[in-house]
C-alpha cells in the first residue's frame, strides 16, 4: 500500500515541472557552427573542382602523347619491315627458279 502511494507520487513528480533555461547564446553558437560548415564547404569545393580539372587535363595530355607516339612508332616499324620483306620475297623467288 505504501509502495503504491509512492509509485503514484513518482508518476506525478513531473506534474509541476518547470522549463529548463536554454543557452542564451544559442543563436551565436549556431551561427559559428553554420559559418564553420560553410567555410569548410567553400574551401573544399574549389579544390575538388581544381583537382578534377587537373586530372582531366593530364588524362587528355597522356592520351595525345600515347596516340602520337604509337603513330610514329607504327610508321618506323613499317619502314623497317619493307626491306626485310623485299629480301625475303626475292630469296623465295630465287629458290623457286632453281
Amino acid at each position: 500500500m505504501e509502495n503504491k502511494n509512492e509509485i503514484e507520487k513518482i508518476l506525478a513528480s513531473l506534474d509541476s515541472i518547470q522549463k529548463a533555461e536554454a543557452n542564451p547564446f544559442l543563436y551565436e553558437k549556431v551561427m559559428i557552427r553554420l559559418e564553420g560548415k560553410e567555410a569548410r564547404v567553400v574551401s573544399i569545393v574549389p579544390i575538388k573542382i581544381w583537382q578534377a580539372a587537373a586530372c582531366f587535363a593530364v588524362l587528355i595530355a597522356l592520351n595525345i602523347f600515347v596516340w602520337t607516339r604509337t603513330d610514329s612508332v607504327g610508321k618506323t616499324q613499317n619502314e623497317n619491315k619493307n626491306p626485310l620483306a623485299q629480301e625475303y620475297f626475292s630469296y623465295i623467288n630465287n629458290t623457286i627458279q632453281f
Partner: protein
Amino acid sequence: MKAGESSAFKYLVDTYKGIVYNTALSILQNDEDAEDMAQEVFIQVFHSVKDFKGESKISTWLYRITVTKSLDLLRSRKRKKRFAFVKSLFGENNEPLAEQASFVHPGVQLENKERARILFSAIDKLPENQKTAFLLNKTEGLSYQEIAEVLHVSVSSVESLLFRAKGNLQKYLEGYYKK
C-alpha cells in the same frame, strides 16, 4: 526567413530555443547532449526552411525535428553500446561500458528530485513512441491533438500510447520497489 535573412533566423532561434532544448533534454537526459542537439536542430532548420510548407505550426515542425534527431542519436548510441559489448565478449575491448548517469531534470522541484530521477530512469526503458508521447505530454504540456500532429498519428493512437506508457511505467516502478 525563407529568404535566409539572419534577423528572422535569430528571431526563430530565440523564440523556439526553449521548446527545442527542453524536448531534447527530456529525451536525451543530458544537458550537454541537449544543447548540442538544439544547435543541430537549428542548423537543420536553417538549411531546410525552404521545405517547410507551412501546413503545420512552426512549433510542431520543430518538435518533430527535435524528436526525430534525438531518437536517432539514442539509437546510434545503443548500437555502439551493443557493438562494444560484443567486442568485449571477444576480449577485444575490456573497458567497462559507460552507463547513463542518473538524470535529474533541472526544472523539477527540490522535494520531487529523487522521485523524478526514478521516473526518468523508468521512462528511458519505454518503447520510443510511448516515451515520446509521455514526455511531450508531461514535460512539454502538449495536448493529445498536438502530440498527434508531432508524431503523425491519430488522437486515439496518442491516447493508447499514453495509456500503455503509464501501464509500463507502473510495472517498472513496481519492479523497482520489489528489488
